[in-house]
């Protein structure tokens, strides 16, 4: 019997695993966390089968551990992401991402006449509803729902 070849993403010794990222959000997560600037080994897989999400992505970052504030930024595009903290090949901690209360510099305001879209102003949003992610622009006060969120 032939061994079924399966796609596996290799285990890491120490570092962080981010699992249950919607496949379509993978590159946004990489961008938000500036993973392109990291110099230690990173492996990721995408379009992997997931019962929960249908199609998921997973990222494994060696020797990097994220502060809560840092990692929660990805909650906008990967609200169900799960973190596994790995030490010596063992999962020592599991965390879920949480949508933060304030989001700075990641999302773009959907209002074309907002000052943030016309002058060099960093965007800032308040999360007014965590369940159906709704953002309120700190500047123009307009509301934006998850569908319309564009990552800068």
């Amino acid at each position, binding site marked *: 019997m032939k061994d079924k070849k399966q796609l596996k993403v290799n285990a890491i010794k120490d570092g962080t695993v981010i699992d249950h990222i919607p496949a379509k959000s993978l590159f946004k997560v990489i961008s938000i966390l500036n993973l392109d600037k990291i110099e230690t080994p990173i492996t990721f897989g995408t379009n992997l089968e997931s019962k929960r999400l249908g199609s998921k992505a997973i990222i494994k970052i060696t020797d990097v551990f994220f502060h809560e504030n840092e990692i929660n930024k990805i909650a906008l595009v990967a609200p169900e992401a799960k973190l596994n903290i790995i030490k010596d090949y063992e999962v020592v901690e599991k965390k879920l991402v949480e949508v933060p209360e304030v989001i700075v510099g990641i999302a773009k305001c959907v209002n074309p006449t907002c*000052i943030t879209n016309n*002058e060099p102003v960093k965007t800032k949003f308040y999360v007014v509803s965590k369940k159906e992610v709704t953002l309120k622009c700190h500047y123009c006060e307009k509301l934006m729902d998850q569908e319309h969120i564009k990552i800068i």
Partner: protein
Amino acid sequence: MIHKSLVSIGDFTKEEYLHILERAAEFEKRPIQDILKNKIVATLFFEPSTRTRLSFESAISRLGGKVIGFSDSNSSSVSKGETLKDTIKIVSKYCDLIVMRHPLEGAAKYASEVADVPIINAGDGSNQHPTQTLLDLYSIQKTQGNLEDLNIFIVGDLKYGRTVHSLLMAMSQFNATFYFISPPELKMPDEYKLHLEKKGLNYHEYRDFTDIIESADIIYMTRVQKERFSDLIEYEKTKNAYVLQNYMLKNTKPNMRVLHPLPRVNEISVDVDDNEKAYYFTQALNGIFVRQAIICSILGLK
């Protein structure tokens, strides 16, 4: 309030607003003083608005203050490509307070973050115009004797009307009952109705003027703008349905007053002007006292 900017109607507390209305009443008794002597206020109007600007400039001048500024961004460094941040940072050095109107939403908020002096928002795009709301409150309080438990009728463009949304938010703190009269295309947006529901306040919606206005304490008229209609035929059909005429006021309460943020086009018929219940011109005058009160409160002057 002291040295804080006034950008949105939510920036100050209800108590702070009531305090401003008290001070405005004092200024109404003595609008000419030199409380602002040695103070310079910059009026930066990146978008023209003659009435608001003149109202602020008169308020400041009557209190002995000096005004500097521009009334149109074409005549300023903005036309050379200077950023808002740079303009504000520099003008901050030349004055004690900035009054600003800008076509983009959020501009006043951003200015308040980069300026060394307080900012008073005189209108940022379709977002906020808090001094208008305060003068509306003052007018209501003055004509009704108090702000609580009133029947507030709002007519015209309830969807895009900046002053209408702000008035709703402010009066919802005083247990008002709202009556909305508008074309179906320009109904009050859901988020505001939801706000009222959460506060347990009643509201009613109507398509046109009916005898119901007899229970009004305040009728707040706004202009129905042609540009807001996607169907111009619909506009032509409905534009006259929201015109207030003198005969309609026959059975209204003696304390009822008609307000309008102005400019008035045809939505209040000229025959209403001589009715003692027409208050819109006095409303504009009240802007002077309210703005004097706001400026002095922010600058911490007695």
